């Protein structure tokens, strides 16, 4: 892209920021550097420039000075929408913000994080930060579909995608929200065919996200709160187990268990486990022998026979 265009966009942004009153198109064409050619050319240039500036997230206000003659529209950019207004920040707060911006090790957030940090450092300067061990902390979480999903939520697009669960099907969804839980993203939305709110693990989406509508295709129900739909956040019920554990073994079970010694070889331990109890127990192999509940003993032995 040409330097000319870049230069013109910067000049236009600066002029619209500086003006206290609305600048008319005629004023812009005569005063802002870079507009040349026929009236039609300038008009086309300006329309495109306005769009480009809006793409940057800068909002151009359109209005008129004279309420009676509002056919002559003018343009300006308000400082308070343009500037980062986060109020006074202490050195400690800035240090936390910088740490929050730099923990990400995925392509999307590491780049948005470093953009955010440049802006924060333009408030007070980098010298203001304390060393909180930046670069020592990172969160790896690759989310190639995040931008498309976030965009769909922000604009209320109806979307569809191919999803893998027990079978692989095309799902049509009104996207309501996203949840990051234990390092993975989940999409919460109204499944149009199933007529209810469903949770989708983003890593099980096999296709691109197709946008199926124009913006504002739906409104999220006013009583919607994402937390209410995240089944994984519900407290899990736990079961009591009594078992024999070999002396000196089954260390992680012992941490939260009651232990009494039986003989030189075995201790008796009682503990509780959640829904992953079977995996937890099998991890300890023949160093652990469950005594109760009996139906779990049945289940363990039948799974093991199956696995042989």
């Amino acid at each position, binding site marked *: 892209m040409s330097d000319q265009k870049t230069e013109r966009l910067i000049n236009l942004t600066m*002029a619209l920021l*500086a003006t206290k009153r609305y600048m008319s198109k005629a004023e812009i064409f005569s005063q802002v550097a870079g507009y040349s050619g026929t009236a039609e050319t300038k008009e086309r240039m300006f329309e495109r420039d306005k769009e*480009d500036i809006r793409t940057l997230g800068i909002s151009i206000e359109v209005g008129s000075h004279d309420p009676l003659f509002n056919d002559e529209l003018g343009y300006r950019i308000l400082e308070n*929408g343009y500037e980062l207004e986060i109020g006074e920040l202490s050195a400690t707060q800035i240090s936390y913000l910088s740490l929050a911006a730099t923990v990400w090790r995925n392509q999307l957030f590491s780049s948005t994080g470093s953009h*955010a940090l440049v802006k924060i450092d*333009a408030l007070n300067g980098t010298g203001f930060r304390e060393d909180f061990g930046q670069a020592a902390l990172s*969160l790896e*979480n690759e989310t190639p579909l995040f931008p498309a999903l976030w965009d769909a939520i922000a604009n209320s697009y109806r979307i569809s995608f191919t999803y893998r669960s027990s079978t692989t099907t095309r799902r049509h969804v009104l996207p309501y929200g996203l949840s990051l839980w234990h390092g993975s993203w989940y999409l919460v939305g109204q499944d149009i065919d199933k007529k209810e709110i469903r949770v989708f693990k983003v890593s099980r989406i096999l296709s691109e996200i197709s946008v199926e509508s124009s913006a504002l295709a739906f409104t999220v129900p006013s009583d919607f709160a994402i937390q209410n739909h995240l089944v994984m956040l519900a407290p899990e019920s736990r079961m009591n187990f009594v078992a024999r554990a070999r002396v000196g073994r*089954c260390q992680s079970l012992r941490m939260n268990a009651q232990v009494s010694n039986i003989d030189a070889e075995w201790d008796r331990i009682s503990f509780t486990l959640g829904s992953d109890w079977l995996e937890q127990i099998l991890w300890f192999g023949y160093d652990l022998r469950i005594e109760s509940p009996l139906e779990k003993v049945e289940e363990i032995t039948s*799974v093991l026979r199956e696995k042989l």
Partner: protein
Amino acid sequence: MSESAIDRVARALDLIPFIRQNPGLSVVQIAHRFNTTPTQISKDLSLLHMCGLPGYSHLELLDIDYEDPNYISVTEAQVLDQPRSLTQIEALTLILGLNLLTELTSDSDEREVILGLQQKLKAIYGEGLSRSISTTDAIIESPLASEILSAIAKRQFLTLTYNSATSDSITVREVYPISIQYLHGAGYLKAVSVSQNEDRTFRLDRIVSIEKGREEPNYAKNFSFSDINQADETVEIVMGHDGLFFTERHSAIVTSFQEVDGGLRISLSVSAGEWITRTLISWPTKITVIRPLELRQRIQKRISGILGNYQ
């Protein structure tokens, strides 16, 4: 360079307030912060030097001092003296990052500062954001994480009491902590084990306790970190359709998988030792090891052994 004019404008608008607040940086340092090349920054600066407010005399132009590439400063920023507002996704990145930090800390004062910042950002960037994004339990909480992080910042040795899942044993060892990394929600400490003089990775939720030791800024300076575990070999397994969940859980070691009759055939790159043995035994459905043969035999023997326990 395939950069659009818009990206360049965005950077230009951010360069001015940044340099104004951080005078004296070199072109190379600035390029690093803006994820671009020094040449590009030089081009940006000479372009910005031509920009300004209507009138465009020396009174209205931006005034940037960039003759010495080792000392860049802005003497007149015109209307660009303040940084631009954060975009919604930048704000979200910070909110999520702060969220991670609250889950790392057990200190109530620290928590309060962080929550205050989150509220501030949420207030600016909309209620909608908090209604549609949840980060509760974004990571598996580990109460020692913030203590370890502060030891890393102070370059302090740590004595770890560690509960190893693989060997099912508790050991005590001195380490020099390097970094904390979260992978699929679980936190890992990367550290140099002092007695072995080798780097090791410890799962945070298996660290039973820590004791802080002496500070030594340069201990790991010349340490060469090993690449991925060199003892890895190829393990091939066949399992049912729940194999998809297995590949999801263990994505770090899965090298390939394909559908076969009634399930999945999966190739793993992993050391064929104790960890994979326990992992395959504890998976709640049948898994057949195709190779190596020794692993298959070891697993069968163990399963028979466990069944023997119950007779």
